[in-house]
C-alpha cells in the first residue's frame, strides 16, 4: 500500500463519516435533553428522498436541502408529539418513524417518478459539487506528482462538498452551545433532572421540543448529504443502518461532541475499507487494522500531550499510547512489506481471503463490540427515555 492509497482511503473515510457525524450530533442533542431517538435512520431517509426529489424538480440543490430538512423536522415534530406531549414510548415512536419513512419514500417516489422507488439521477446544480480549495490539484495525475504535504492538502483536505466542511464546523459549534451557553446548560440539565429544571421555572416541554427540532435539522442535513452529496439521487433504503451506527457512535463517544467526531470517523474508515477491498486477504486486513490502531494511538498521544502541556496529566500517561503507536506502525509497515510469494508466514496468511460479506458486516459487528462495553462503561443521560410528568 503506498502513501496515495492510504490518503484516498482516509479521504473516502471523511466522506462516509459525514452523514454519520451529522446524525450522531443530532442524536446528541436529542438524547442530552432526555429524548431517545431510534428514528434517526428514518429522518435521514426522508430527508434524503425529499432533498433529491426537490433538487431534481427545481434544479437547485439548496432548495432540495431545505425541503429535506423540513421533512426531517416534520418527523421530529411527530416524535416530539408522541414522546413529549403524549408521553408515549420513545423507542416505539422511533421505530414507527423508521418504518414510516422507509415506506413513504418509496410509495411517493413510485407515484412521482415511476422508476421503481428511486429518483432520477441528479446532475449539475442539483448536486453538491466538490469544492477545490485554492492551490489544490483536483486530478489524480496532478496530485500524484505533488510533495507528500501537497498530496495531503489536495487529496484529503480539499475536494469535498460544502456539507462536509459544514459538518466539521458543527462539531465545535455543538460543543460551544452545549457547554458554554445558558441554553446548553439547561438542555443538559433537562436530560439529567427535568424536575430541577421545572422547579427553576423553565419549561421542560419547550426545551425538549427545541432539542428534538435541532435533532431534526441535523438529521435533515445528513440525509441531504447522502442523496445529493455522497451519491447522485435517492434509492430505496439508502440510509442502510447509518442512523443506528450513529447511535452506537454516540454511545461510544459517551454523548460528547469531539468524541463523536472520532467515533464517526472510525466507522467511516471501516465503511471506506469495506468499499475499497471487496475480497480482502488476511495479510492486508491485518496491516490495515494496525494502521487504524496507529492512527488511534497517535490521536490519543496528541490529546494526552495537550493535557500534559496544561498540567492536567502526568508524563507517564504518554507511555501507553506512545508504545502502542510505535508497535502498530512497525507491525503495519512490516506486514505490508512482507512478500506474499516468498513462502513462510506471509504466504500462509495470504491464503485466507475474507469474503466481501464480512467486510460489509464489519461496521455492524464493531457496533456490537462497542456496545458490549469492551471500551469502557458508557452512562447515558439519567432522565433519558422517561417522559416527564409535571405533577403526580
Amino acid at each position, binding site marked *: 500500500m503506498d502513501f496515495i492509497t492510504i490518503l484516498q482511503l482516509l479521504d473516502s473515510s471523511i466522506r462516509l463519516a459525514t452523514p454519520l457525524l451529522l446524525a450522531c450530533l443530532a442524536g446528541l442533542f436529542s438524547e442530552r435533553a432526555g429524548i431517545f431517538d431510534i428514528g434517526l435512520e428514518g429522518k435521514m431517509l426522508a430527508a434524503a428522498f425529499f432533498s433529491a426529489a426537490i433538487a431534481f424538480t427545481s434544479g437547485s440543490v439548496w432548495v432540495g436541502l431545505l425541503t429535506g430538512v423540513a421533512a426531517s423536522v416534520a418527523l421530529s415534530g411527530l416524535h416530539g408529539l408522541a414522546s413529549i406531549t403524549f408521553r408515549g414510548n420513545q423507542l416505539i415512536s422511533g*421505530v414507527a418513524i*423508521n418504518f414510516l419513512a422507509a415506506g*413513504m419514500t*418509496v410509495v411517493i417516489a413510485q407515484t412521482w417518478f415511476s422508476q421503481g422507488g428511486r429518483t432520477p439521477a441528479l446532475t449539475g446544480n442539483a448536486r453538491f459539487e466538490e469544492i477545490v480549495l485554492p492551490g489544490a490539484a483536483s486530478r489524480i495525475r496532478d496530485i500524484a506528482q505533488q510533495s507528500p504535504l501537497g498530496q495531503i492538502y489536495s487529496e484529503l483536505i480539499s475536494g469535498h462538498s460544502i456539507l462536509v466542511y459544514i459538518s466539521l464546523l458543527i462539531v465545535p459549534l455543538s460543543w460551544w452551545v452545549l457547554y458554554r451557553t445558558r441554553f446548553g446548560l439547561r438542555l443538559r440539565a433537562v436530560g439529567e433532572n427535568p424536575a430541577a429544571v421545572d422547579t427553576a421555572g423553565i419549561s421542560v416541554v419547550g426545551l425538549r421540543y427545541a432539542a428534538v427540532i435541532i435533532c431534526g435539522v441535523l438529521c435533515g442535513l445528513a440525509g441531504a448529504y447522502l442523496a445529493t452529496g455522497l451519491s447522485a439521487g435517492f434509492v430505496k433504503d439508502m440510509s442502510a443502518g447509518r442512523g443506528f451506527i450513529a447511535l452506537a457512535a454516540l454511545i461510544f463517544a459517551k454523548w460528547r461532541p469531539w468524541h463523536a467526531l472520532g467515533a464517526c470517523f472510525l466507522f467511516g474508515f471501516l465503511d471506506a475499507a469495506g468499499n475499497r477491498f471487496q475480497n480482502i486477504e488476511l495479510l492486508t486486513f491485518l496491516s490495515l487494522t494496525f494502521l487504524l490502531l496507529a492512527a488511534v494511538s497517535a490521536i490519543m498521544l496528541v490529546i494526552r500531550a495537550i493535557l500534559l502541556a496544561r498540567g492536567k496529566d502526568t508524563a507517564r500517561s504518554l507511555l501507553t499510547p506512545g508504545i502502542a503507536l510505535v508497535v502498530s506502525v512497525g507491525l503495519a509497515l512490516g506486514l505490508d512489506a512482507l512478500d506474499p510469494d516468498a513462502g513462510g508466514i506471509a504466504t500462509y496468511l495470504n491464503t485466507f481471503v475474507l469474503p466481501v460479506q464480512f467486510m460489509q458486516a464489519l461496521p*455492524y459487528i464493531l*457496533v456490537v463490540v462497542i456496545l458490549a462495553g469492551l471500551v469502557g462503561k458508557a452512562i447515558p443521560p439519567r432522565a433519558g427515555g422517561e417522559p416527564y410528568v409535571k405533577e403526580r
Partner: protein
Amino acid sequence: MDKMPKWADVILIPLISVLLALLASGAVVAFIGESPVEAMRIMIDGAFGSAYGWGYTLFYTTNFIFTGLAVAVAFHARMFNIGGEGQAALGGLGVAIMALYIPWPHWSLALIGCTIAAALFGAAWAAIPAYLQAKRGSHIVITTIMFNFIASALLVYLLVNVFRVEGSMAPETARFAEGTHLPSASTFAGFLGFRPSTPLNVSFFVALAACVAVWLLIWRTRLGYEIRAFGHSETAAVYAGISPVKITMIAMLISGALAGMMAINSVQGEAERLVIDYVQGAGFVGIAVALMGRSHPVGVLLAALLFGALYQGGAELEFEMPAISREMIVVIQALVILFTGALDNMVRMPMEKLFLSLRPRSE
C-alpha cells in the same frame, strides 16, 4: 381505582387506534391520487374474496403469529426485540440444514425436527444480544438491529458460497427432499376449495398451538409470572428473588425461538428450499402485531390475521393499481405501530376523561 372498564382498555382503545391508522393510510392513498374506498375494496376482495386469497392470507398470518408472539413475549419482560428479522433468517438456516442433510421418512417427523432446529437457531441468534443486555447493559434495541444486518450478510455468504447448487446462479439451496414436504391446505382442507398450489400448510396449526403455549407460559406458569413481574418492575422482581439475568436470557431465548419457527411455514412449507431474504419484513411486522394485540396471544392472532389480509390484499392492490407500490404496506404497518404504540395516550387520555364523566357521582 380503574378509570375505565376493562373492555374499553382491551378492545375499544386498540380498535380506535387501528381505525385512526387506517384513516391515515386512506389519506395517503388519496394524496397519491387514488380512491381509498376503491383501494379498500380491492384489498378486502383480494384477501378474503376467494379460496386463493384465503390461502395466502392465512399463510402470511402464520408467519406473523410467530413473529408477533416473539415480540410479545419479549414485551412481557419489558424488552424490545427488533431482531425478529435476523432470528427468523437464522431459523431458516436451521430448517435448511435439517431438511437437506437428514433423510426424513415422513413429513411429521421432519416437521418436528425442523421446528426444533428453527427454534434453536433463532434462539441462538437472540442469545448474544440477550447476554449483552443482561450482563453488560448493551441496548438490546440497537444490538438486535445490528444482528439483523449481520444475519443478512451471513446468509448471503452461506447461500452464495456454501449451499448454492453446483452450476446454478441463484443464491439458494437445493430443493428439499420429498419426505420433508408439508401437506398443503389442499390435502387437509381441499373441500374448502384450496388448490394444490396454495402456500397454506400444516404449520398454521403449529402457530395456533404456539398461541396456546405462550398463553399457558405467560399466565399459567411460575416462569411466566416471573417474566411479567420482571416486566412490571425490575426492582420489585429482584426483591422477590427473581434473577434479572435469568429472566432476560430466558425471555429473549423464547422470543428468538418463536421468531425462528417462522421458517417452518415459509421455508419448509412453502418455498421448500432456503432463498435469499426469505423473511421479507415479517420480523418487523411482528412489532406492529404485538403492539396491536396488546401482547396477548388472542390479540396477536387477530392482529396477525389483519396483517395477513393487508399483505395479501396489498399484493392484489399493487396488481390492480400500479400507482400504489407494495411499500404502502410498510406505511400502514408504521401507522399502526405509531397509533397503537407511541400515540396510545392520544386516544387513552380523552377516553379516560369520557368514562370518568359518565361515572355516577355518588361514589
